């Protein structure tokens, strides 16, 4: 599947595993429940968080994940933005943070500002067109995960 990562389109091989059927080959993205309940040793693991998962439950295990996916059940649900920011700025998570679910061009500018660097664009949407969204604005007033100096102090 093609996804956007670090502002480029790449072929991605991570597999979303929801717990049904045999465990597929390869690198797995799983929910918190599955990660807690199943034996996944020897695999590269990506953890998928839902908006109401508590970061306090996993904050000591972050080093075990090669990526963290944050799900947007609908793009009107903005909890994932705070989650990513806390992961980056408070918990110091440095690897991939991926937006999945109801994700399209119009959120990308804000998502990248909050610490996301990978995006599974929902099906039926033009992924090439979506790339342009990173350039929607050339000026940012506030500090955020991508910019720690407020506009008035930048030169």
């Amino acid at each position, binding site marked *: 599947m093609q996804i956007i990562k670090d502002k480029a389109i790449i072929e991605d091989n991570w597999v979303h595993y929801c717990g049904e059927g045999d465990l597929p080959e390869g690198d797995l993205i799983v929910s918190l429940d599955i990660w807690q309940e199943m034996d996944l040793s020897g695999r590269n693991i990506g953890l998928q968080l839902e908006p109401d998962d508590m970061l306090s439950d996993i904050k000591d295990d972050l080093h075990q994940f090669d990526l963290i996916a944050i799900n947007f059940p609908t*793009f*009107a*649900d*903005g*909890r994932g*933005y*705070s989650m990513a*920011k806390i992961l980056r*700025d*408070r918990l110091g998570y440095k690897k991939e943070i991926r937006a999945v679910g109801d994700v*399209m061009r*119009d959120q990308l*500018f*804000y*998502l990248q*500002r*909050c610490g996301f660097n990978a995006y599974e664009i929902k099906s039926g949407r*033009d992924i090439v067109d979506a790339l342009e969204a990173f350039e*929607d*604005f*050339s*000026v*940012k*007033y*506030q*500090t*955020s995960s991508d910019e*720690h*100096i*407020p*506009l*008035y*102090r930048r030169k």
Partner: protein
Amino acid sequence: MYQYNENDQRIVDERVVQFRGQVKRRLAGELKEDEFRILRLQNGLYLQIQAYMLRVAVPYGLLSSRQLRMLAHIATKYDRGYGHMTTRQNMQFNWPKLEDVPDILDDLASVQMHAIQTSGNCIRNISADQFAGVAEDEIVDPRPYAEIMRQWSTFHPEFAYLPRKFKFAFTGAAQDRAAIQFHDIGYRAVKNYAGEVGFKIYVGGGMGRTPMIGKLVNDFVPEKDLLVYTEAIMRVYNQFGRRDNKYKARIKILVHELKLPKFIELVETEFAALRQEGAVPLDAAEIDRVTAHFTDPDYMDLPDKSEVFNQYLQDDKDFSLWVKQNILAHKKSGYAIVNLSLKKPGVPPGDITDDQMLSVADIADDYSFGEIRSTHEQNLVFADVRKDDLYQVWQALKDVGFAEPNIGTLQDMICCPGLDFCTLANARSIPIADKITTCFDDMDYLYDLGELKLKMSGCINACGHHHVGHIGILGVDKKGQELYQITLGGSAGDDASIGKIIGPGFDQDEIIPALKNILSTYTRLREEGEGFLAAYRRLGMSPFKEQLYANN
């Protein structure tokens, strides 16, 4: 007033380009309506019964004459020749075509205006005391802080998809004229014993179907912490505000369900964590930079007494009535604050035509440093008029139709669009407002009643602020019949309170007699000099209720 620098301008210009692209994708079918809806709402574009409606931001109610002329141009070119002042100091257009909206935004950007975040579940345009900077009772001018907050909240990446809309209001005066206790966050700028500026912060006020008065969350947040403390509140709300039920999604419900001490604890913990991570406090230099845009205009040194003015007062009774009702004292001697009344029989409260906008802009250029303000009571203000000029200003305003001497009277009512425009309405409100202003047109009687805040909404969403009217009118639907419920005792000021329902509702023919009845109880029982609200608070509901339903 604030002038955009290159960065500010670039942001609004880039927004126009972005929105033009979104409209194009919508028209080409690449965006579905339910997706586009969320995007257009963040840009002030609603879909109503008859058409789209575009809400243009007037940050903290400040407009230049040049901006007002552009609004007039938009009303002429893209609308039906008029606009509407809202209860959050913005200007709304009721008839734009979707295809035209990007061009309208371009026109707005050319005069440093926009429609960014005037609706949607994001931090909305910020409102403030309409007399900021000129009021006699001001302690701190809130405008620089409101502007700093406007910039901070514009396209804030973390808070664009909140559980629900989010409204800020600022005041820095002894008397709250911005209804800060009925906003999601209300900021009252104060000074501490050392003369340092800080903010009393109220959270969780609001109207709608569950009206609540904002609760004091922090007594003094130093100015340098204004943004980080706000960020902490917003983050707590974004994470924990309810998203399962639209009617329980406002921050007032979160504060209510968590209970205030727990809410404060969450905010303080978040604030401490943000600081520890190195959140940047607001620089004094930045406060100074923005404050420099709000210095006094070039006032003349004038005596407080104006001979010309006093002569006109003596000679012209109509003029002196207008002065008594619509003019307020100014902090600078020899100057006055002029309220323009947008309320009169036959016109929906807050409506203003393109020609009126142009005339108001001209008068502002001639007499008030080219600046106009909008108020949450849907009127306009000239903040800096020389007393010597008041007579000329009055005559000019009479020609425009904005010199009705009715500010603060029963005629000066707030009223939502109601069934004529709004898909959610239970009942009409504009025609009822018109009946009321037409019927209560004896000015001597209105002056005798004194200050009386009458507010009307066409449904429980309370866009017309009926909860905080001394007398509130609420349109309800009773088995298909439009009925009007009356509440008494609300107030949006420092003595904030929510009105109580007096009893069964009235139909549109009964509403005027019911109002007359309530007012006669007041005039009969009031003490010397006692206003309606004070009398109600002393007497309670019973005498009003007994009299009103005496024959049933």
